[in-house]
């Protein structure tokens, strides 16, 4: 995945190369491999040892393309080309042709931030139905087919689990 830190010209290509087990990983940033040991991690942040140095990062507001983190007390904005929306869309059946399936299901667990449609609305395949927040990141869930919104099964601010029913589109 490609990353760019605002105010710095350089861009970074980064990925996990190998899971060594015991929370040890090899990651690659540009051409250099690093050892990374995760001490602790949750949706609020991560503590880790990169090579031999301890770091602490807080994950603040995230969108699929922009991350606000505080690394060792230094606030940094990172832009990434993640295509998360597309991945979610694809897994909802959006990429397949002629999907006859009625229900739109959530591909990720998260909190419902907003609902973009009302029952009875006509939607086109790819229209945003709702926005979920997961790991402080907002991801839109899009209609997997053309049709009319028959029913909405979620409420704003409620939590949904992976596989939960979001809406019926007929």
């Amino acid at each position, binding site marked *: 995945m490609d990353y760019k830190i605002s105010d710095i010209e350089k861009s970074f290509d980064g990925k996990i190369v190998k899971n060594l087990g015991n929370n040890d990983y090899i990651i690659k940033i540009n051409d250099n491999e690093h050892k990374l040991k995760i001490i602790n991690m949750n949706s609020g942040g991560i503590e*880790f040892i990169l090579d031999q140095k301890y770091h602490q990062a807080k994950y603040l507001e995230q969108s699929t393309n922009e991350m606000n983190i505080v690394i060792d007390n230094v606030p940094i904005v990172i832009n990434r080309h993640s295509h998360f929306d597309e991945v979610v869309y694809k897994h909802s059946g959006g990429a397949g042709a002629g999907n006859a399936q009625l229900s739109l299901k959530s591909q990720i667990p998260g909190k419902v931030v907003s609902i973009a449609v009302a029952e009875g609305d006509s939607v086109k395949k790819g229209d945003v139905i709702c926005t979920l927040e997961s790991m402080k990141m907002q991801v839109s869930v899009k209609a997997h087919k053309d049709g009319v919104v028959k029913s909405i099964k979620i409420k704003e601010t409620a939590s949904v689990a992976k596989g939960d029913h979001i809406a019926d589109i007929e």
Partner: protein
Amino acid sequence: MIEKVLIANRGEIALRVIRTCKALGIKTVAVYSDEDYNSMHVKQASEAYHIGEAAPAKSYLNQEKILDVMLSAGADAVHPGYGFLSENDDFARLCEKNKITFIGPSADSMNLCGDKMRCKAAMLKAQVPTVPGSPGLVKDADEALSIANDIGYPVLLKSVYGGGGRGIRLVTNDNELLEGFETVTSESISAVGKSAIIVEKFLEKTRHIEYQMARDQHGNAVHLFERECSIQRRNQKLIEQTPSPVVDQETRDRIGELVVRASEAVDYTNLGTAEFLRADNGEFYFIEINARLQVEHPISEMVSGLDFVKLQLDIANGEPLPFKQSDLKMNGYAIECRINAEDTFLDFAPSTGPVPDVVIPSGPSVRCDTYLYPGCTVSPFYDSLMAKLCTWGQTFEESRTRMLAALNDFYIQGVETSIPLYKTILNSEEYKKGELSTDFLKRFSMIDRLTEDLKNEKIDKSEAAIAAAIVHSEYFKSRIQNDASASANWKNKLD
């Protein structure tokens, strides 16, 4: 004996006073506005009373309401802190009338200190040098002209009703003076409906050096050394230190004697501060007396080993000073950084709002006076000062590097702070060498250097930041692709 003190203030200074009172077994009464019901001083005091709306005029400046609380709570003394009612002689008089001890100077002395012209006259009489200029208001442009020629250009034309850069002009010759006299007059009239102008010599590359003074009700007076507060923005202090790099023992004693004389000239009691400008040629000129406990008092506590709030209470109780000047010795070096909620890059505009998380530095010889706690709010109604970070060292260099370490440890989420600027300043060669002046920020382009430092800091942290982003992204991807809901253990979900 004072047994119950009402603190007519909020924020860190209210906490500061409460702390000493608690240590001495004195009960405390907090007051709070609508904005402050969840503030730390309310939680720390023995009792807390609501006194009105958020706007200071409707709460912390409401003398009648505060008096009501003092009477009904049975407080026998009031500590005004700084700001708000601290230098309001009407309030001091109101307390005197109601037999409540005002912890500070008498109302009359405070009134004299607050009246710049009368105070200056008192100092001249006591042979304390003041900034050369007109002895009082000038009646017209001609008089201003003759004074300017006496003391020499450049001079400042100041309206006594001005402030914040309005009603003030720097002039360098006769023509500019005549023109400036007109503008200052009209600016002052349009702002407050009247004009009263004084002429003062303009001093370049000045340092702001002040002396802590203490005088008891029996006329014993001492100074508790100097503080240099030259690093300022818009006439507000940002960083203070003691001792000053340009004050040696001979100067300290010599100016210290003037300070004692100044305190006598206005019959000052309790703790106060005599402020001086030091010209580049080494001359000291008295500017004013701050008739209160000052924001930057902790650095003087650090080098004197005294608790100033305790000293204030003792003096207010009528006790004589427990030491003479010759007993007092300065120990080490101390620096204070005022941690403000403001955006350095928006001309220090206030930055307010919730503070979900905060990490307060600590350790040997690190002191942080603050009202912050995780989950608190920085209110737009009050001062932007959130915390005072002070460090002590046996040498100046030790206090400086200790301050840098403490600044690095300080984390305040949610608002912009002056911390990054202080790191740039404390790392600069000019600061290390003590090349201080009130125009320090501008003279050494500190804001531009801060921009550069912030960029370098980001470059320095970029690999770690990318590592954190990679883990976040990979984990998120795995949540979409695998069934992550079954496991609460995030760490094992990356592949």
